């Protein structure tokens, strides 16, 4: 290549540039599969759904509060007809993500518990950033009915990810390169966490095992409490619509579904006021009456000492919450 480069050499350089881009697009699924990221648990869940035999009798969905707060083993034997129970919660899992997973549940699985903090129902957003892309990169294909329900439930801007082509999804998946180094190093940076459990444990994938130092906990609480203004629970319209869709799907599939409202740290309950707790109770009662779905409200059952940080229950808190759900499910038979 010289300063007086002929056009064909420049064309070659341009094509080489495009080839590098094409290599990235082609290798993306393999690179994504090997890259550490918060959604790797989704891959574990898909494999479990395909490979667990016999299929689980009970599945629990939810976010990291549920991962840290429910030990699914406690349901086995304690709840009628449940021999195998799995915790299918994943980090930041929204109702929409749980709904994506719902279509993958084996027909033989007849019980589902959806467990989240009540304030998570206030969100208008369907997915955490990159969540749907991760689903696709791990081999997920949404059924038309799933797509239709999500499009009907959320504003178009929040479900735009659903409309991307396979090429766009592969290009979009490059976000993983920005996170892979930090996610790989987390174990070294935070030796107090047991984050690998999220990628191998299907029963009690609790990663947050050590309580934060008091000063740090107070800082964290102060920051997070300020995010939500005090006042009553305001369940968003998309959450209402998708919960209703989830209930309809369960009825259609002859599946029993329960909504478990997760424990909330006393500092939040105090900051958000009695109005919040009362409105959660009112929502639980109304939802149960309207849908015949069992609602297990654990919003107020844990004290400060039973949390490891501002949101995640510790071992003692998890045992207590799990017992409450197991007892409630057993009561209904």
């Amino acid at each position, binding site marked *: 290549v010289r300063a007086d480069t002929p056009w064909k050499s420049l064309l070659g350089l341009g094509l080489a540039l495009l080839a*590098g881009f094409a290599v*990235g697009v082609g290798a993306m699924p393999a690179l994504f599969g090997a890259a550490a990221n918060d959604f790797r648990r989704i891959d574990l869940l898909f494999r479990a759904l395909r490979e667990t035999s016999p299929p689980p009798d009970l599945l629990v969905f939810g976010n990291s509060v549920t991962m840290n707060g429910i030990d699914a083993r406690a349901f086995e034997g304690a709840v009628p007809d449940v021999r195998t129970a799995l915790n299918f919660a994943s980090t930041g899992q929204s109702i929409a993500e749980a709904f994506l997973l719902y279509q993958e549940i084996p027909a033989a699985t007849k019980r589902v518990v959806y467990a989240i903090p009540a304030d998570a129902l206030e969100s208008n957003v369907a997915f955490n950033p990159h969540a749907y892309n991760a689903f696709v990169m791990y081999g997920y294909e949404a059924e038309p009915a799933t797509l239709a329900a999500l499009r009907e439930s959320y504003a178009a801007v929040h479900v735009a990810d659903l409309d991307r082509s396979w090429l766009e999804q592969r290009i979009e998946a490059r976000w993983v390169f920005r996170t892979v*180094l*930090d996610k790989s190093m987390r174990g070294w*940076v935070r030796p107090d966490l047991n984050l690998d459990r999220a990628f191998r444990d299907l029963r009690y994938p609790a990663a947050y095992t050590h309580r934060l130092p008091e000063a740090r906990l107070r800082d964290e609480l102060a920051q997070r409490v300020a995010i939500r203004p005090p006042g009553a629970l305001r369940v968003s319209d998309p959450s209402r619509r998708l919960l209703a869709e989830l209930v309809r799907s369960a009825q259609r599939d002859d599946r029993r579904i329960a909504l478990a409202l997760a424990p909330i740290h006393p500092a939040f309950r105090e900051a958000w006021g009695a109005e919040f707790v009362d409105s959660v109770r009112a929502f639980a009662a109304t939802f149960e009456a309207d849908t015949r779905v069992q609602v297990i409200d654990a919003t107020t059952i844990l004290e400060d000492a039973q949390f490891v940080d501002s949101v995640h229950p510790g071992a003692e808190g998890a045992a207590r919450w799990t017992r409450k759900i197991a007892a409630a499910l057993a009561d209904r038979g």
Partner: protein
Amino acid sequence: MLFHTPTFAVFFAAVVLCFAATGTARGRKAVLLLASCVFYMWWSPAFILLLLGPMLVDYNVARWLETATDDRVRRRLLGASIAVNLGLLAFFKYAVFLLQNAALALRAIGVDVDVPNPTVALPIGISFFTFERLSYTIDVYRRVTPATRSPLDFALFISFFPRLIAGPIVRAADFLPQLHRKLPLRFDAGIFFLVLRGLTKKVVFADNLAPFVEQVFAQPERWPSAVIWLGAIAFAVQIYCDFSGYSDVAIGLGRVFGLELPKNFAHPYFAANPSEFWRRWHISLSTWLRDYLYIPLGGNRDGRAATYRNLMITMILGGLWHGASWNFALWGFLHGLALSVHRALADLGWLARAPSPSRLVRAASVAAMQYWVLLCWIPFRISDTGHMWTALRKFVLFDADLTFSAAGIGNLSVVFTAALLAAFAVLHGVSAWRGNLDEELARAHPALAGAACIAAGFAFFALWPLTEAPFIYFQF
């Protein structure tokens, strides 16, 4: 229409085709002028009047300046040009700032005034093309350069699109003579790799460092000193890659049309003292400030005290050129202080006079200078006074809290940022040591050049920003 968007690629291809299809010298310049107007109007159609209108004033003033012999008349003509250009700049860029500060000053002395707070949109690139117009009429006044007789040449000099929005700031004496021939259309490997270098700086480094910098400096009270330091280093690299990346692409695109634009950067983070830094950083602005502000103020001709004063005035105004905000003035003040102190030490004979100091002395000087440069970037980046002082305190008084766990477990991409900075350090170091990599690659074996392109293509795929980010200097 950013350089790294498909829109610009289509626009540029169309300009090249029209340019190639035009056979005459005048026609090719007309194509570039038309393209420049379209490029500017893509940003803000109405402000095209602001770009072209004062051109009529400056074009005619320059012609009159050339023929006029009466010094008083010439001074008045020059004054009119300066008044028009600085007046427009003052109105669009500094009016609100001046009003607000006047109100604050009046309130401080007990006069309660109700000052209007109008919203004035800042025309993109105004600081750059205003300085170019000013330098033209001043140079004609000084009889350094002749006034051009071609309105087309003058309009193209002011509006040439590759450097219209963020420089390099071009001098008429360098640019106009290049228009006295039929402009050739050139494509070669040197241009290809220069543009690739600029895009890599912007897309791979600057845009991927930006989110980390934003997170750190939006809430500096949250982070330990180690993170503040990393944030300052990340911003130093971000702004360098963003701005010099723009300059590289602008210079490369200029060469496609046979127009050479001035070099704007020369490895500034290897500078060992303040004056060397300003010979390496934003060279077209620092030389402009030297020639049209520092020297007219008296330069170093009126004794030491006047020299230091002139340095301070020049740098503070240079800081304010970046934006109507006191944090930019502080940035300029700190650099002016460094230049003055360095000058004073030289005047006192305290600086090593050896022509080539030992490597160790040089390395220590570079480290000390870059510590100051990093410190100065903090007020440049943070306009909120409280946050700025917090960050400066943590930067200077290191808290020795090295537990990066305080920075979260993934929300703040500490490791990714550190890896990017390490990659930048290697590439920047190699290019400072061996010469620019793009020039090496342009001369390299085709297989090596092709491999570099494949690597760049993969890097673009992997690290292309998820959201479009404009160049930082567009806001100035």
